[in-house]
């Protein structure tokens, strides 16, 4: 039996950039043999194989409206990875992305894997954010970057594979027990922010 690692992933990005579309595409395109509970498109899970491990992504959507930004820390605490989405046709959404990255660097969990998704790449004719900019920025912060299209199912799978690869493998002596291994709340306990 392969070990199952649960990985909390939070979705960040402006409203309307297609955060939940990416996840819906990712979760629904493929047969998921674990019947997982979901809350609409806000909380979804999907298990994928990675090497000799199974990665169960617990994907937490967040509200993109600016007025809810201050609530975001509750959602991203304890995340192993963050998918930050922008719309390649909206320069503003790329600025917002940069703010998110900055906030994660400052207040987010240590060693959080960051993945940047430039969504709506099917609309590259009205592109406002050049791929080069995104790549340079991603490199500067050590993040994965990929241009996706939830509509046409481009690069969705690759995005999450990229995250899986970035997740450090388990410490061998940590998994002395059997069955499922939970490596989640590395920075969880006791650090609940109180606003």
């Amino acid at each position, binding site marked *: 039996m392969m070990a199952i690692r649960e990985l909390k992933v939070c979705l960040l990005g402006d*409203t309307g950039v297609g955060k939940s579309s990416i996840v819906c595409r990712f979760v629904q395109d493929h047969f998921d043999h674990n019947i997982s*509970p979901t809350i609409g498109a806000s909380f979804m899970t999907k298990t994928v194989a990675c090497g000799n491990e199974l990665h169960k992504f*617990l994907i937490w959507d967040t509200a*993109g409206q600016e007025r809810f930004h201050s*609530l975001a820390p509750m959602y991203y605490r304890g995340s192993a990875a963050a998918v930050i989405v922008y719309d390649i046709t909206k320069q503003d959404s790329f600025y917002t992305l940069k703010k998110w990255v900055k906030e994660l660097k400052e207040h987010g969990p240590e060693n959080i894997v960051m993945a940047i998704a430039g969504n709506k790449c099917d609309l590259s004719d009205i592109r406002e954010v050049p791929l080069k900019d995104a790549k340079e920025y991603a490199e500067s912060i050590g993040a994965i970057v990929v241009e996706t299209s939830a509509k046409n199912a481009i690069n969705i799978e690759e995005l999450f594979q990229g995250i899986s690869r970035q997740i450090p493998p388990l410490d061998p002596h940590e998994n002395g027990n059997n069955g499922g291994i939970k490596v989640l709340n590395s920075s969880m306990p006791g650090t609940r922010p109180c606003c």
Partner: protein
Amino acid sequence: MCSPEEAALLRLEEVFSATLARTNSLVLQPLLTAAEPSDPQGRECLRLLQQLHWSSQQLWEVTEESLHSLQERLCHPDSVRLESLLLLRGADRVLQVYMEYIESYTSCMVVQAFQKAAKRRSGYWRVQRKVLRQLLWGMSSEGSVGTALVEVLCQPLTYHVQQYVFLLLSLSDTIGEHHPTRELVVHTTTLFGDLQSFMRQALDQAVATQALWHTLSSRPRDVLCIPARRLLQDSQDVPVTVTPLRAERVLLFDDALVLLQGHNVHTFDLKLVWVDPRQDGCTFHLLTPEEEFSFCSKDPQGKVVWQRKVTEAVCQVLRGKKDFPVLGAGLEPSETPTCRCAAYTFRAEGRLCQATYEGQWCRGRPHGKGALKWPDGRNHVGNFCQGLEHGFGIRLVPRASEDKFDCYKCHWWEGSMSGYGICENGTDEVYKGYFQAGLRHGFGVLESTPQAPQPCKYTGHWERGQRSGYGIEEDSDRGERYIGMWQADQRHGPGVMVTQAGVCYQGTFQADKMVGPGILLSEDDSLYEGTFTRDLTLVGKGKVTFPIGFTLEGSFGSGAGGGLHTQGVLDTAALPPDPSSTRKRQLGLGVFPVESRWQGIYGPFWAFVHAGCPGELQEALLGFHVQSSRALRKSQEYLCCERTHPEDSACRMEDILEELLQHREREALQQCLRKALSNPLHPLGKLLRTLMLTFQATYAGVGANKHLQGLAQEEVKQHARELWAAYRGLLRVALQRKGQAPEEDEDAETRDLQVHGLVLPLMLPSFYSELFTLYLLLHEREDGLYSQGIAHLSLFPDTKLLEFLDVQKHLWPLKDLKLTTNQRCSLVRDNCFLSATECLQRIITTVDPREKLEVLERTYGEIEATVSRVLGQEHKLPMDDLLPLLIYVVSRARIQHLGAEIHLIRDLMDPIHTGGLYDFLLTALESCYEHIQKEDMRLHRLPSRWNSRAPW
């Protein structure tokens, strides 16, 4: 037809009756008419003679009755049958009367009552000598009056019984083999034959006893001589030596064993003499309550004689009446009974000196139920084992002054208190808890009674009679509660003090005094870190952090004219402190490791389980149920243990264990655990009850302080874990008893699942009110802001609120609103998402965090269902849409103290859900709660004034 023997019997009875009558008038009456003697011995003699006179009357009456029945028979031989003769049908009664007469007669004889009485009226008797001679056969003229009296009162009787036997024998011969009454006649003959033997033995014993009193010197005689006492064996006849007590002479009486040693007379009540069945050549051993001896004779025969005689005598005394016809009749060559009931006063120095024990004995030791009374008023009633208090017992100890007692209702183990007990010290204080070696040890509660002058209460650990370890002390006079470590009856080690005023502090104590720096939190959320004293005077170096963020660092001391004197630096530039640093600061975390905090409660339980749950220790663990002890105090004469005995109640250990075995599947197990936890007589129920007690002692009243929430919640979780482990422990014993293999050790994850899924929901209600109060206090301020937000939002009509919250218009459940076409802004309230709102309100109807989360999940389901209905198709809500809707539902549900609820759920939630669906649901709810607290939610009047550039 009557036989000639019957006629002969008639004549015999006529003669005997006449003889008795004559003896009465000529001998007994004159003996009694002597003047009232003045000395006690004389009075004793008179009493004995009166007794004899009475017996003689009985004898005469029974003879007359017999005579009458014979006359009837002889007159009407056909109608009156043979068996109607008194001698045949009432042989036992006749025998009884004869035996009583013999008894009275021998008693007179032993103390020489006749001789003494005769001497007193010697003149009279000299004259009556002739008359006496007429009454007797073959009496020599030289015999004294005394001897003549002795003879005249016995001889006719002996002769008469002899004649009975003779005539009855011939009667049985004449009436033929098959006569229906023959068997009765034969039986009666045997009885009277036995009576002859009895009389012979009685006379022999009396003669020997009388002779003994002559040979003894006056001192032992005065001590020993009792009319009813008979000598059974004398070491002058069959020599025997006694060790270790070197007695010169050994006398075995029918009620006591006497060892003479010089002038000393050692008397041992035969009721409390055991003959050790061990055989040992020419020696045998005797056990008595305080001494053991060996009887050694020269030859085996001598030993057999003594051993048999002592055994017979002991058995006779325990039967309470004389053996018939002779001593030892009907006795198997057996041993003396090992267990008896008797009273005894101890003589030897030691703890039992002068104490009287009344109750069951076994082989020389108090054993079984009994009562022990000391001359100083101490009093113990209960179970004994091998001479020591063992098992349940109640002891009363009078106090030096006043009419007060210390009352110990407790389990005893080999003479000292051990296990659970209740001890009342006078009327002032009560201790309920565990004892070891007679001292308070382990967990216990010491509480003053309402009428005590100084109210106090200690709930916690004890060591050899002193407060030691973790314990809670309440001082209601000062309005203080100390939570922390103790040593040798003093506060010692880390401790937390909470006060009625709301001030609380944490520090280190040494011999009841604060030492070193500590943390002081005032009710206005100022924080002082530094040194201070118990009466909250700041002394020495320290730092004050004010709620607004200013800090003052320096050295503090008392001012000259009272007040505070300080020299230090005031820093006004510091940012307001993070609220969690002072306002939510938790005291005691990490200093009282939760695993060992209440080990004194679990200790006795595990000792019980490791011993295999023996039924006899059940009560020592669980305590017992006694009714009011007031009645006990009143009558210390006879204490009775009016407690529900574990064997009587439905809680026998076997049943408890069997029940655990029967219910191991999840549903059944849940039922079974619920029942167990609610039953105070069940080990698990008892544990829970004790834990509740400690929880209330710590966190109720003065302890309802927000700074203790951390301690409380980790304690509850630990208790759930411990209770699960306790269940597993009991199950292991149950399996072991059935010879089944124990269950495999579960891994941490399964255990957590059971603890959170099974045990926590069952036990949480017992702690909920105190625990929730702490959450309430801790989140008071946030809950206040939230309430303002809710109150403000509740003013909005539904559509206004949906608009205000930026819910997308196409999701508005307008179908739920009764709107006229142009009435976009209706005044309708509380109609939209009603099902979700009502669902969410159910969160407060349960205490189980898991059920609360399920309520939450259903609420999301309801929101989604409503939206899907509005859109006419299944719609999956992304967070962008869901969060505003959720804020709407939360604001409409108007749940009080939502912050306390959320944090309680999060703290008690099974950690397995971290990151999962339930975590997400709860986080979403929490984010709504946070959002509603925001200023713009609470204060802005109109949705149009909504400023979209919110700070971030």
